[in-house]
């Protein structure tokens, strides 16, 4: 697997990964603002957001129709739709594409759900690797607190209830997130994650993110045409 730069795309893809509550969405939003305000060509894409596939995914989730296999395949479908119709054309046009979650989210979740890792990776092997992948590593308890302190309504699949880890959604969520964290950590070296300590203040993290982006991407190449 190669990165977009290695495949000679003019654009660059930056992905953020991490547990729910790790603060990654805040960080990628601030990164986006910074790039936009410099007048650069930036596009932001979220996991699980293709319009077409969304109706099937939400039906599957609402009615709890999904098994580990179909959960994996339907998310891969969603990703492929965004990848082929949005990400690739924009990267061909020289955009900096920011992705809130990328294929590593699928690798982690589907593996925890019991799908064979080789199968899952094979499905996603049409996708190039990000040029930069930030992994926001917060202590499990910190992420859990950020999500659970408000006692939110946890959704069935979000809490990993389909894995029958516990009949209590909060307990199930804790175990599920712990297993996902293990998966992320085991991928960290293989995919050269840039690990950011997400227990730090928002500003400290963002400062690090911006420095790393500056050091690794020649931003002047991505100026919006006048």
């Amino acid at each position, binding site marked *: 697997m190669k990165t977009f730069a290695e495949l000679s795309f003019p654009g660059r893809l930056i992905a953020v990964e991490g547990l729910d509550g790790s603060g990654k969405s805040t960080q990628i939003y601030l990164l986006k603002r910074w790039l936009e305000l410099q007048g650069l060509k930036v596009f932001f894409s979220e996991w699980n957001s293709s319009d077409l596939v969304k109706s099937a995914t939400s039906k599957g989730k609402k009615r709890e129709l999904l098994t580990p*296999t179909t959960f994996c395949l339907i998310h891969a479908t969603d990703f492929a739709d965004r990848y082929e119709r949005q990400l690739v054309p924009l990267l061909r046009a020289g955009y900096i594409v920011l992705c809130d979650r990328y294929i590593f989210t699928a690798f982690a979740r589907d593996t925890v759900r019991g799908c064979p890792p080789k*199968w899952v990776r094979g499905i996603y092997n049409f996708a190039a690797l990000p040029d930069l992948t930030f992994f926001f590593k917060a202590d499990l308890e910190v992420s859990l607190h950020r999500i659970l302190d408000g006692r939110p309504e946890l959704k069935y699949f979000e809490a990993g209830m389909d894995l029958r880890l516990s009949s209590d959604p909060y307990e199930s969520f804790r175990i599920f997130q712990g297993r996902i964290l293990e998966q992320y950590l085991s991928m960290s070296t293989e995919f050269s994650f840039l690990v950011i300590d997400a227990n730090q203040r928002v500003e400290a993290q963002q400062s690090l993110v911006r420095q790393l982006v500056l050091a690794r991407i020649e931003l002047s190449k991505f100026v919006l045409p006048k």
Partner: protein
Amino acid sequence: MRTTPLAKTQRSPAATPRHITSRRVLVPKPTPKRFYGHGIPGVDLDQLTGKLVVIEGADGSGRSTQIARLVEWLEGCGHATVQVGLKRSTLVSEELEQAKQGNILSHITLSLFYATDFADQLENIILPALKAGFMVLADRYIYTLMVRDLVRGMDEAWLKNVYGTALVPDAVFYLTVSPEQLVQRNFQKNHTLDYWESGMDVGLSRDMFDCFLQYQALVEKHFRRLQSTYGFTIVNGERSVEDISAELQEKIEEVLVGN
């Protein structure tokens, strides 16, 4: 999804008399089952006592006619049947239909959408039915899906990995009808050629008629190539309905006795 009701109330007027008069119902001999790849996690293959029979072929090759006749015959013989086909899953069939109408999906996306539809039916209809000892008749299976993608230049190794979820059927029949015959049959039925069955998205020709002929020839070429890997039985679909039925019945009888 369309499944046939349980066989108990259905009589079978068209079935061959010798089967109706026979009171003894043959209990099919279980044979070992396997998946093409890793399959579906947590499935005990030894519990799948039913049989999976697949009919492949282009639109107009007589698949549905033959399946209807097989259902009549099998039920007449005392076997419970279930029918499955592509694009019939609860999970994604509507969305898939929508997407095809608008022709808005790229290849990998459409391919994965079909794979989702297939996996949903496999887990929710095919495997439970086989576990309950039913004869499952599949109107097309992963081979059509793979061939369609191969014609569109997709990677065979990728497809094989995706469909590593699939169960190996007990029998696969591929009904062959020449593209020229298919055109005639399609016109008799609809007076029009289907956009996808003509492979218009592949762009072999701007003329739909030419495109249909070229596309169907390509599909057949790929099917014949896959035949060596997957070993399906090629059935000449240009004979009479009865002759084809007789051949299928004979071969399925062998499956039932465990040959």
